[in-house]
């Protein structure tokens, strides 16, 4: 077997297999023609001499400047600081707490905005996350890093948002923001006097629903702020406000059907008109 293989190799050498291949390569211009022993030695010598010349004529490299000590990354730098602020906040230091919340706000916003594209909703989630950090501040231990703790809370806030959206998705139709944004631009809603009918309808609501509707719609607070003011969770204030809106709509529709309130104009203006028309 081995003898056969040897014979085959020899025969292929005799047939000039390698020289044919080399000739093809030369014709393609990809390789130099094969060199015999003497040529190889000359070529090697020439290469060596060229290398030596290059070494002799090569200009000296300018000395590299000494590497500057690396700046610590921002996260690593701020981690102990954030931790210290949180520790102080747990002890009741309001200044440290303000510094902490201000410092983490961009981080929280970055996490939220990387996952939620809608601006208004994302800002709501940022507020919910800050509120969760506030309410869960007792769970932070100073020997643990601050970053993972904060990120876990923000992630949960984002997850809650998606869960909530999925739950409400079947029941609500989202309004295009651009369309109504122009209509609501105007005076501060908190300063516009309410129509008496609306005031009556509001007064007829249960206390918790009235509080939620007033905080969000009349005072113009965000959901998170309203939740903080009412000392309940964000979910709870949303539920109360939703129930309040439904009850208000029922009351106002009832009033309209009975002819108490026929248009959206304030009753005072209508009564003035009626007086003028009567006189």
């Amino acid at each position: 077997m081995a003898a056969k293989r040897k014979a085959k190799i020899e025969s292929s050498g005799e047939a000039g297999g390698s020289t044919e291949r080399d000739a093809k390569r030369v014709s393609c211009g990809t390789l130099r023609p094969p060199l015999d022993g003497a040529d190889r030695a000359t070529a090697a010598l020439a290469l060596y001499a060229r290398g030596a010349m290059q070494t002799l004529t090569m200009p000296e490299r300018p000395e590299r400047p000494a590497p500057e000590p690396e700046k610590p990354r921002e996260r690593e730098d701020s981690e102990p600081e954030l931790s210290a602020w949180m520790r102080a906040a747990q002890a009741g230091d309001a200044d440290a707490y303000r510094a902490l919340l201000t410092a983490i706000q961009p981080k929280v916003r970055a996490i939220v905005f990387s996952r939620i594209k809608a601006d208004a909703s994302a800002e709501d989630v940022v507020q919910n996350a800050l509120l969760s950090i506030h309410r869960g501040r007792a769970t932070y231990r100073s020997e643990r890093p601050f970053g993972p703790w904060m990120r876990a809370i923000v992630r949960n806030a984002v997850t809650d948002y998606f869960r909530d959206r999925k739950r409400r998705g079947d029941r609500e139709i989202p309004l295009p923001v651009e369309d109504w944004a122009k209509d609501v631009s105007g005076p501060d809603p908190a300063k516009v006097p309410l129509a008496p009918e609306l005031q009556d309808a509001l007064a007829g609501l249960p206390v918790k629903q009235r509080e939620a509707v007033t905080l969000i719609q009349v005072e113009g607070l965000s959901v998170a702020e309203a939740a903080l003011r009412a000392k309940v969770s964000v979910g709870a204030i949303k539920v109360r406000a939703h129930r309040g809106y439904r009850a208000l709509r029922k009351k106002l529709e009832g009033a309209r059907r009975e002819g108490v309130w026929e248009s959206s104009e304030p009753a005072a203006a209508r009564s003035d008109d009626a007086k003028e028309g009567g006189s």
Partner: protein
Amino acid sequence: MTDPANHTDRLIDRLTEELEPVRPLPRLRTAFAFVLAVWAAILAVGLLGSSTGWVWSTLQSNWIYGASFVGLVVAALGGTASVLAAGVPGRERVEQAGMFLAFAGLTAAAVVCWMAIPDVGANHSYPGVDGMCFQDAVWSSLLPAGVIFTFLVRGWVSRPIVASLVGLLASAGVGALLVHLSCSLITPKHILVGHLSVPFVLGVLGMYPLGWLIRRLRG
């Protein structure tokens, strides 16, 4: 229209104004050691009157009894670790590992008993005894559940319903363990119905009400 970012700044102002000092939660290890001490005390008090001399020998001789014992212990320990970690943001790994242990321990023990029923030929029904053990286990679980939920309410639980389920598995695991160590009927069917089913049944029935309660108490 007001800028939502202004709302965030206003929220920070308000949070700062409302800041009150808080006491940080104990370290996870400390809390775990404390809860384990409570479990040990409950078991010691529960087994005080009963004769437990045969327990060790039965554990060695009856592998079904031993497997269910191990399953309940693993469920109690894993569930406790998971629940304590669930109250602390950033400890999700411990939470998930504990949860896995609790479920795996209980399920493995239940499967062992289930598979042993036809072999041992213990298809006799003892509804009265099964019910009695079940009831005892439920009552014994109340105190451990109270301890666990004190921690859960103090912590910041992201998924209250899941945490309630695991908490109930752990506390019912302790209750069932107490009954398991004091019960002399060790047929596979009885162990399955009267002891091992307690954590599953309590967990499924109690997770929604307790999850709701945790949400309410947390505010």
